């Protein structure tokens, strides 16, 4: 009996020990699982913090200004661009006013989203697009984006199509009318006059097409010729070519050339075309009896050609657009001067092909100075840098 009890007790003890060991193993397993879960939770939290940080960095560094406004109008969140507007003056004060206005509009109107475009006269002129969206709990998200460049490109595209149609359709329309009139006309004097006008209009279309082809060639010429070109020779050639037009209006073309002559590696024909267009414009838009100056300059690794006139000048608002194809400051005047509207576009592409720049400084009534600045493309000199000196006038 005693043995039976002992055996039972030992059995129970064994079961208890086994159970305890099982529970222990289970506890260790649960503990390990808990640790793994904790690790996963920590990792998830770290990942969430990193994602939040990334999102914050993205919003903070975004070029667009991001505002979150509370229902009271107080600013709950502003990224770097928005903070600049919040503390800004002048145009930015008006952008902030538009942000608050749009936010109020959204809250009053009960709509979910609203947009607005703001045009600022400046200077400088700029356009800002505002988009507002309602967030939960009555907050409003407003994003403002500077769309000045986008607008400019849209304008260029729209005007180009309109202008090219105008430039080609006007003379062709005139030619059609003249030809029609000539068909029914017998008077030889009148016929002679009409045919002269027909010829003039045909020449106009022809020169527009010539310039278009030239521009197209320059645009597509990715590898222009690179030959040593002396700028004094380019200037001399161009001045000679412009002389008849200048003489007709009693305009003196004066040159100021750096000595020794400036040289660069470039495409002579393209350079002559660019300088001719600048000089031709200067002569066309100068007052009779005035003076146009063509000068060359040289800096360390660049050479420059300036064409300065004392003519009618260019209004400030047109300055950034004069290099566009067919852009006209004054359409009526340009028709009387006979330009194709492509001259300055050619100059810009020649500068681009030579990895240079063309700039203009102008005031209405005071004249304009166009400056073509090009890298000389020559091997670096061994000695000290060369500067402007020894300018001679002729």
């Amino acid at each position: 009996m005693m043995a039976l009890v002992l055996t039972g007790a030992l059995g129970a003890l064994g079961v208890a020990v086994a159970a305890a060991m099982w529970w222990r193993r289970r506890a260790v397993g649960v503990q390990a699982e808990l640790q793994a879960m904790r690790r996963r939770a920590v990792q998830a939290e770290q990942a969430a913090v990193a994602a939040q940080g990334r999102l914050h960095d993205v919003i903070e560094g975004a070029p667009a200004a991001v505002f979150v406004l509370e229902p009271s109008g107080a600013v709950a969140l502003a990224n770097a661009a928005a903070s600049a507007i919040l503390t800004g003056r002048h145009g930015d004060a008006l952008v902030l006013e538009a942000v608050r206005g749009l936010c109020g509009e959204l809250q009053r109107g009960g709509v979910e989203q609203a947009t607005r475009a703001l045009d600022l006269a400046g200077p400088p002129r700029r356009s800002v697009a505002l988009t507002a969206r309602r967030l939960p709990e009555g907050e409003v998200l407003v994003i403002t984006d500077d769309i000045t460049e986008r607008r400019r490109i849209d304008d260029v595209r729209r005007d180009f199509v309109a202008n090219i149609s105008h430039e080609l359709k006007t003379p062709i329309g005139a030619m059609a009318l003249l030809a029609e009139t000539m068909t029914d006309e017998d008077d030889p004097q009148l016929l002679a006059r009409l045919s002269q006008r027909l010829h003039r209009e045909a020449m106009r279309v022809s020169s527009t097409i010539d310039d278009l082809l030239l521009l197209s060639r320059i645009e597509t010429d990715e590898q222009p010729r690179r030959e040593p070109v002396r700028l004094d020779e380019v200037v001399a050639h161009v001045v000679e070519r412009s002389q008849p037009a200048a003489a007709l209006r009693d305009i003196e073309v004066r040159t100021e050339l750096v000595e020794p002559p400036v040289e660069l590696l470039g495409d002579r024909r393209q350079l002559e075309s660019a300088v001719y267009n600048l000089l031709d414009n200067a002569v066309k838009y100068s007052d009779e009896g005035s003076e146009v100056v063509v000068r060359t300059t040289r800096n360390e690794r660049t050479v420059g050609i300036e064409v300065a006139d004392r003519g009618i000048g260019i209004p400030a608002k047109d300055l950034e657009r004069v290099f566009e194809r067919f852009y006209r400051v004054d359409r009526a005047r340009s028709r009387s001067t006979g330009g194709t509207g492509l001259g300055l576009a050619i100059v810009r592409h020649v500068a681009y092909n030579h990895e240079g720049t063309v700039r203009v400084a102008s005031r209405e009534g005071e004249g304009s100075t166009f400056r073509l600045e090009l890298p000389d493309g020559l091997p670096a000199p061994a000695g000290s840098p060369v500067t402007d000196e020894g300018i001679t006038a002729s």
Partner: protein
Amino acid sequence: MADEMRKGFHRELDDVRADIVKMAAMATEMMTRATDTLLDADMLMAQAIIDHDDDIDVLSQAVEDRCFRLLALQGPMAADLRAIAATMRINSDLERSADLAVNIVKGARRIYGQVLPPRLRGIIAQMSEEAVRMIRLAIDAYTETDGPLGAALDDIDNRLDQLQSEFVQAMFEAHSDEALPLQPAVQLALIARYYERIGDHAVNIGERVAFMASGAAREHPGAARIRERAQQAAAQAAASGQGTSDQGASDQGAN
């Protein structure tokens, strides 16, 4: 409690300052648009500018009311009092500047159809840029309480005065060349005067800022002339009194 009231006062003052900055931005925007209206003969824009002036008037009235309330309820002293006094006068200068932009637009409407010679157009564009630049500099000085910049505006204004003289000269030349009839010439002379007056308002704002920063008000030229006259009169009286007493003394000596 007092700290809380002071914080509230400064919050309110900051709001008023923000309104002044906004009003200046609205006024300069109007000036540039007024010049565009004049140079491009854009009559649609002209009416929009005239209408927009009402918004500036409303804002100006609100700023004035808030300044009066601050004066009445907070009893500011020293720098705070100067800030409010200066702000009230700057408010008035900006409101007048916007009115002058409206006058430019009205002048543009009166000369509608008149082709302006390039030289006059160029100077108008420069006067406009200069007037806008001066108001902006004045507001920069105001927001940063930069007294020296405020005081410097008087000298900076010389450029606008010079442009006005050049404009009048160019106008006479255009008139004598028969490029500009008399009636538009008179309107243009007035328009040039409006730009020049905007510059004067910017100078006034600069003077208010200098006063706000230092507490020393610049003496008005009229007041300075009266003081000088009074000093001269006193010096003359002293000299004649001295002469009389010298005379008396010599008479006594002779006796």
